[in-house]
């Protein structure tokens, strides 16, 4: 295994250990926070696929989390078993992502950004107005946490491990996808689409696939979000969350596999650390992102990489590389 592989495995191992042990040192609120971290990381991994690997800006990830959350809430409260509802959430968001992306990606100029912006607002409107379905602004209350073969995830600790487990499974699946020829294709389409096309790579299809899978991961994150917070309302899934997720991916390092993990951690902890500034945290966050884009567009992991000079002359796998456009 090459040097990069060793470092990555080491990092994953450390992360796994810390994540497994941490909750035992935390109180209830702390466990809630790291559960939120796990859930948001899943959504960020999805957005990282779209942005970091396929190079497209999506402002709809929040909406997809919302669609996933509402799907699971409504289905489980109608008697569906949780796993079926979960799969439904993911599949629905994949389909919507495909349909949404198809026309938008035929043209250049970052049209997807605008389409997803419009879509997010539309979703909010539908969630707010269609009271017969979603209970409108009153939201859906009392969402239950699932039970698997007698193991109830009701307690904070149990639900955390459920979220952590899902995170492990989904990130492993993503890793595997990036190790396959698809990973190479994503890199090609991001680094040099013209060359990629001449080699028979259908750039449109791969971009669309990245966006659809990314949206699907958003939906799955939503499916976990609903039982985590146990009360959902339309306002949580608007542009605010989409921006938040976008900034997470950027701050962590877009195109890096572990970027979303880092970005989500910052996003979850920052409001806690800036409590003393009385709600200025979004301001600080936004300022941080702007400064970061000026000095280290490849995010925190980009900074780490430059500082530690992990990259040697030896070739790296697609998993290590980030978007050309974010390189200094």
């Amino acid at each position, binding site marked *: 295994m090459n040097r990069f592989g060793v470092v990555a495995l080491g990092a994953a191992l450390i992360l796994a250990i810390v994540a497994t042990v941490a909750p035992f040192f935390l109180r209830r609120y702390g466990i809630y926070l790291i559960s939120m971290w796990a859930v948001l990381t899943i959504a960020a991994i999805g957005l990282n696929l779209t942005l970091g690997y396929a190079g497209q800006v999506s402002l709809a990830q929040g909406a997809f989390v919302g669609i996933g959350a509402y799907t699971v809430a409504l289905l489980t409260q109608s008697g569906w078993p949780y796993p079926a509802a979960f799969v439904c959430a993911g599949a629905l968001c994949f389909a919507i992502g495909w349909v949404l992306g198809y026309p938008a990606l035929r043209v250049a100029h970052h049209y997807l950004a605008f389409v997803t912006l419009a879509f997010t607002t539309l979703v909010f409107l539908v969630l707010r107005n269609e009271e017969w379905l979603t209970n409108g602004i009153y939201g859906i209350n009392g969402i239950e946490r699932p039970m698997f073969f007698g193991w109830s995830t009701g307690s904070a600790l149990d639900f955390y491990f459920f979220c952590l487990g899902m995170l492990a499974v989904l990130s492993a699946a993503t890793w595997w*996808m990036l*190790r*396959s*020829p*698809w990973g*190479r*294709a994503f*890199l*090609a389409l991001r*680094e*040099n689409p*013209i*060359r*990629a*096309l*001449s*080699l*028979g*790579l*259908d*750039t449109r*299809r*791969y971009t669309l*696939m990245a966006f659809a899978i990314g949206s699907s991961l958003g939906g799955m994150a939503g499916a976990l979000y609903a039982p985590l917070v146990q009360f959902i309302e339309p306002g949580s899934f608007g542009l605010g969350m989409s921006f938040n997720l976008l900034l997470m991916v950027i701050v962590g390092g877009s195109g890096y596999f572990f970027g979303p993990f880092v970005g989500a951690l910052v996003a979850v902890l920052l409001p806690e650390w800036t409590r003393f500034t009385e709600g200025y945290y979004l301001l600080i966050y936004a300022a941080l992102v702007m400064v970061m884009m000026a000095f280290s567009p490849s995010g925190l992991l980009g900074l780490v990489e430059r500082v530690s000079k992990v990259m040697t*002359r*030896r*070739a*790296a796998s*697609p998993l290590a*590389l980030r978007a050309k456009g974010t390189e200094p």
Partner: protein
Amino acid sequence: MSAVLEVSNLRKSFGGITAVHDVSFDVREGEILGIIGPNGSGKSTLFNCVLGQLQPNAGEVRVDGRPTTGMRPCDLNGLGVSRTFQLLQVFPQLSVRDNLILAGQEHRGSMLSRLFGRSDAGLGDAAERMISFFQLSHLADEQAGALSYGQQKLLDAAMAFMAGPRLVLLDEPAGGVNLTMLAHLRERLRAYHAERNATFVVIEHQMEFVMALCTRVLVLAEGRIIAQGAPQDIRRNPIVIEAYLGH
């Protein structure tokens, strides 16, 4: 023997300027056709129209009899048409081996099957053979960006050949390459051609390269074909000489 490539009455204008006027020619299987001409004669524009990078204003392109005018480059590649680039277009961060696998992988099964198949899409051996054919074995695991210019040119050609194309269009393959490497490149192209009976179309400025490699030569000037024939005849053709000296 039918033509692998047929270009009929191709025209391409940019605003008021017509870069390619009513150009028609055929390329038969096994030929190595050279396209030469002074700067601004429309060679690159012609190339890009054939390859789907640009939409021609009029005219038709056919590959093996199938109309391909304006087809997307990736679909054209699926029909067996490959190209190299004037300005280097390897993937600098991938290894030489990975570049080659990437170059061939889209031809192995469907998109979905590739997701569930092997990481190298079953191209490990083919890549190895291509690496030794171009004598890049000592560089196989190096980052492509670390190779010398000439070596990258070889890689570029190797990538074009990975999918076993019927027709390869080479855009100024000799540009900027030193003499030794040039001879090596020319020799490798000839060897590939002999082995596979492939069909090449080459745009080039360097006369020696074209004359030594090509079986037939086409001369473009100001968007029109002014001469075509065997290399030695073209070299002596007064119209051609005039077109070059006149600039």
